[in-house]
């Protein structure tokens, strides 16, 4: 089954050419995802986690552009034959093949359930449209499927909700409807970009639990993008930590939290307040630099407690293997 990863991103670079300068939002990102796994991508603002997701879906807004790299995605075959792999980075972003993948085999859930639905169309009509776009069948059948999937994601009285506008739903219900739309075409990869950040904590628990349950039933892989290490620890099987457009550390979830190697990962874990403790926090010095002022060498060096002058500010660290499925980009391990 897992001879070949579902998704393999190789040295992806997505840059934004702006009047003020070049922003290297994603600057050489590589990772792999197995079918059915949950990869958590964690990082602070400007680390490139959302642009990575948008690059995979080929919906990077102008003036952003994939300038380098490969995004190999394994597509299921229609007639039960062998899988085949396509490089999404080479496809025409608006071409037929990309459109048949986007929203169907790779689906996306956004942070803002408020603005993700059209305010003037009913919830149902928007999900029905997605189904009709990617699947055969009549409008009637699509409507039945929509009601069924709304029920599956825990929307109460789906027969009525299907004809409501998104503003008639609460934040939690809207996020459930968003998940219903994403799952309506049975994706093999679900990208969830801060899916619970706008929700209250008791609603967040419900939505995370729902995602986990649906993953068990449908077997899709989830790429979970968040700044919240609590959500990552709860959901992910593997974690990629990003900083200024790079993956600085990648490992199975237990290693990230219990044997972190990169000084940035360690710093993040020391700086988060924990519900079981009142000990003084140990923050990371400084702040994430402005994207136009990207540091030379290792992007983390101005904030790094292990900084070595002459090395970290001059050269770029390579991806180094430090354990089972555990890689770090830091001169400490080269």
């Amino acid at each position, binding site marked *: 089954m897992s001879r070949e990863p579902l998704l393999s991103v190789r040295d992806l670079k997505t840059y934004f050419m702006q009047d003020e300068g070049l922003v290297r939002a994603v600057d050489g990102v590589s990772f792999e995802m197995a079918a059915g796994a949950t990869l958590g991508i964690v990082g602070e*603002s400007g680390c490139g986690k959302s642009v990575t997701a948008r690059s995979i879906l080929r919906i990077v807004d102008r003036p952003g552009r994939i300038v380098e790299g490969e995004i190999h995605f394994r597509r299921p075959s229609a007639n039960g034959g062998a899988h085949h792999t396509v490089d999404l980075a080479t496809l025409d972003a608006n071409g037929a093949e990309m459109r048949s993948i986007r929203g169907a085999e790779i689906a996306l859930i956004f942070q803002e359930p408020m603005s993700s639905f059209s305010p003037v169309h009913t919830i149902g009509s928007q999900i029905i449209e997605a189904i009709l776009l990617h699947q055969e069948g009549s409008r009637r059948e699509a409507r039945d499927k929509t009601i069924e999937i709304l029920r599956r994601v825990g929307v109460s009285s789906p027969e009525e909700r299907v004809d409501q506008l998104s503003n008639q739903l609460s934040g*939690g219900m809207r996020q459930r409807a968003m998940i219903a739309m994403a799952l309506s075409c049975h994706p093999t990869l679900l990208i969830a970009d801060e899916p619970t950040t706008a929700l209250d904590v008791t609603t967040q*628990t419900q939505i995370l639990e729902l995602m986990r349950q649906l993953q068990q039933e449908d077997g899709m892989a989830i790429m979970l993008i968040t700044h919240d290490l609590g959500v990552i*620890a709860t959901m992910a099987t593997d974690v990629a930590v990003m900083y200024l457009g790079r993956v600085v550390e990648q490992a199975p979830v237990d290693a990230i*939290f219990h044997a972190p190697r990169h000084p940035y990962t360690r710093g993040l874990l020391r*700086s988060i307040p924990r519900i079981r403790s009142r000990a003084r926090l140990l*923050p990371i010095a400084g702040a994430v630099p402005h994207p136009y002022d990207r540091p030379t060498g290792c992007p983390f060096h101005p904030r790094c407690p292990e900084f070595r002058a002459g090395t970290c500010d001059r050269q770029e660290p390579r991806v180094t293997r430090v354990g089972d499925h555990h890689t770090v980009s830091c001169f400490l391990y080269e």
Partner: protein
Amino acid sequence: MSAARPPLLRVSGLQKLFPIRKGFFKRTAGYVRAVDGVNFHIDEGETLGLVGESGCGKTTTARCVLRAIEPTAGEIFMRVASGSMVELGRLRPAELRALRREMQMIFQDPYTSLNPRMTLLDLVGEPLLVHGMRSRREREERVADLLRRVGLRPEYMRRFPHAFSGGERQRIGIARALALHPRLVVADEPVSALDVSVQAQILNLLVDLQADLHLTYLFVAHDLSVVRHISNRVAVMYVGRMVELAETDELYRAPRHPYTAALLSAAPEPDPRVRSRRLMLQGEVANPAAPPGGCYFHPRCPYAIDVCRTQTPAWQEISPAHFVGCHRAHELQLAGVE
């Protein structure tokens, strides 16, 4: 506690209703019960954390305390220099203005709460000017001192806020709040818009400033981990009512209200080895415009019985300084976090 010295602030029976207006004549069709009968006090030098989910009334409570909005009912007493308690609602405008110097606010969003056309000197110096510090030179000295205190370089005084990161802007907001030597600082989600690595810096700064300047905080937040780090006591609100109030460690270790226990168990912990037995609440937060009868929490409460559906629970002191509003508080055994 009360024998020696009265608290700095005492709030009793606080209520704030927002009318819902409908139709051409804007007749009042009902009320949103944003805050509905809240009681608490804050001692000098302590931090009271006020937590709850969106719409629970925590921000409205904070704004009523500052008289940024007028409460519908209830009394807010503040201890003045003479040691006596004055009720803010009975003060004349000039008296209230004088007292306002002692109560300041730190806002959530450092990007929108600072006027982008004002330099740091003007932003931090404005309250000084308003309250009578006419000499520019004197103001500059005070602003430089304040900037140093919050960890910014005084040389940056002539710059505009856009040149600063989120964390630095929040420091500017803090400097502005401290300009008039306040005694009470109301902080409304002061770190929730910040990156994790910067959030810790600001929390530590608030703790240090409190110790140095003998400040009293009312700290409003939704994140229970953040609140535990900074608060001496914590109050939990749900749909406009306070449901529990206790000393921080006691509230986290041994919550007495099912909603507090659910909030604690819902907070995702940054440790994959404690993927805990979550106490998952059903349903969603009640609508404060049409709350259910009895205890507002009963439709979601796994322990609700008949009385919960019909009667509002009394606010009772279940053990010394531990208050709870739950009919079954005495019999329930609820899990907290160590």
